[in-house]
């Protein structure tokens, strides 16, 4: 007996959406920490550190996220590291987000005028103090709109975790379709939920960007 698309399916999709949000949050936190480390390494005065971070960024940006997911989910257990689907997806997303945010945040750090570095240096602040008390607070302001915008990419790309048996919104849609075979309405419903998750972030990002542009004009 094939039932038609109904409340119970919506409920199942929303449960999937909750997991999408959880994975997105994990990816953002993990990737954020990774991105900060990579960004700081990219502007290190030590050549090897800088080059290592640059190589990491180039490497990750040259690999499809889906392949990173497979490497995490199938590859890690194969070398003796057991991982749950959520764990595998989080690790893969962290690696991926870290590379993109690292490169983006490096730009934001370097966009802080050199004269600010100089002023901080001449007050005898140590490199760490200059970074955390003078440069990063200003870079955060530059980077916020773009970072919020990138969160949209993170949410959409968590859908690839459905390929490693993580039951997120996309995978929930596939499971429903497998049982009731109503692909159009099912995936339209999935699409609508993704849109509702992403749209507010897009609006927020654009609003922050406009506010920043106004702030610049004033200063």
């Amino acid at each position, binding site marked *: 007996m094939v039932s038609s698309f109904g409340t119970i399916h919506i409920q199942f999709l929303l449960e999937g959406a909750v997991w999408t949000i959880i994975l997105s949050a994990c990816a953002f936190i993990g990737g954020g920490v990774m991105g900060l480390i990579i960004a700081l390494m990219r502007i290190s005065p030590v050549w090897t550190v800088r080059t290592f971070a640059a190589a990491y960024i180039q490497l990750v940006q040259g690999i499809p996220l889906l392949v990173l997911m497979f490497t995490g989910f199938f590859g890690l257990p194969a070398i003796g590291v057991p991982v749950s689907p959520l764990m595998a997806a989080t690790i893969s997303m962290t690696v991926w987000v870290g590379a993109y945010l690292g490169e983006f945040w490096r730009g934001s750090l370097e966009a802080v005028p050199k*004269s*600010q570095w*100089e*002023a*901080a*240096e*001449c*007050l*005898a*602040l*140590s490199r760490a*103090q200059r970074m955390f*008390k*003078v440069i990063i*607070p*200003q870079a955060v*302001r530059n980077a916020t709109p773009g970072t919020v915008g990138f969160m949209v990419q993170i949410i959409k790309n968590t859908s690839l975790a459905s390929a490693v048996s993580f039951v997120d919104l996309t995978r929930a849609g596939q499971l429903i379709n497998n049982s009731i075979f109503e692909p159009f309405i099912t995936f339209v419903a999935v699409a609508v939920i993704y849109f509702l998750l992403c749209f507010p972030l897009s609006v927020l990002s654009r609003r922050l960007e406009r506010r920043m542009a106004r702030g610049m004009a*004033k*200063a």
Partner: protein
Amino acid sequence: MNNATENKPVIVLRDVEKSFGQVKVLHGVSFEVQRGQVTVLIGRSGSGKSTALRCIDRLETVNAGYIEVCGHVVTDPALELRKLRLDVGIVFQSYNLFPHLTIGQNIMLAPRSVKNLPKTETVELARACLEQVGLGDKFDAYPEQLSGGQQQRAAIARSLAMQPKVMLFDEVTSALDPELTGEVLKVIERLAAGGMTMVIVTHEMNFARRIADQLVFMHQGKIWEKGPGAILDAPQTPELQRFAAQEL
């Protein structure tokens, strides 16, 4: 303090050479600054005076020559820069206040994080430094809320809070409207009267003549004349003669 250290110059530049790529900007620059003395570097834009000043605080590294400041050998590659910067304060043309911090926080940042002074003490210190530059009521203002002249005075207060032995001023009034220049120069003159050792790069010739114990005239990376403010009235070289005729 014994006489030997008292008579030793606080700043020494000897045969300093500096190039940016192919362009040589300092050709054998030498001068000395005694304790409590005000030295003013004058010359046209591009004469090397700002570069010479920046070399004193190791914001530029020199290609040859010797620089010593408060006993620190600046030209020694192994110099601990932070020790040098504890003794030397510098104020820039573009103020370079930290825009995300209030004026009070700008001033307290270094005494708190570098000298580890307790909070209450740094608040008092910051208020005292702001009083000194006539900005006692701007403790909680943000830099963007102040005029250029006020921002520059706040920047001076920020340097003073570290209680440096030497103050460097790099064209600190060049970005200001003429009516705001005076208030900044007055602050510097008060510091001079208080016995602060200073090196000043400026285009304000009347101010230079008034304040300088030693005037240093630079042209095309070389020092042509140095002496008291009176050298402007009786130039010995055609270069200074031409410069003085134009500027005064």
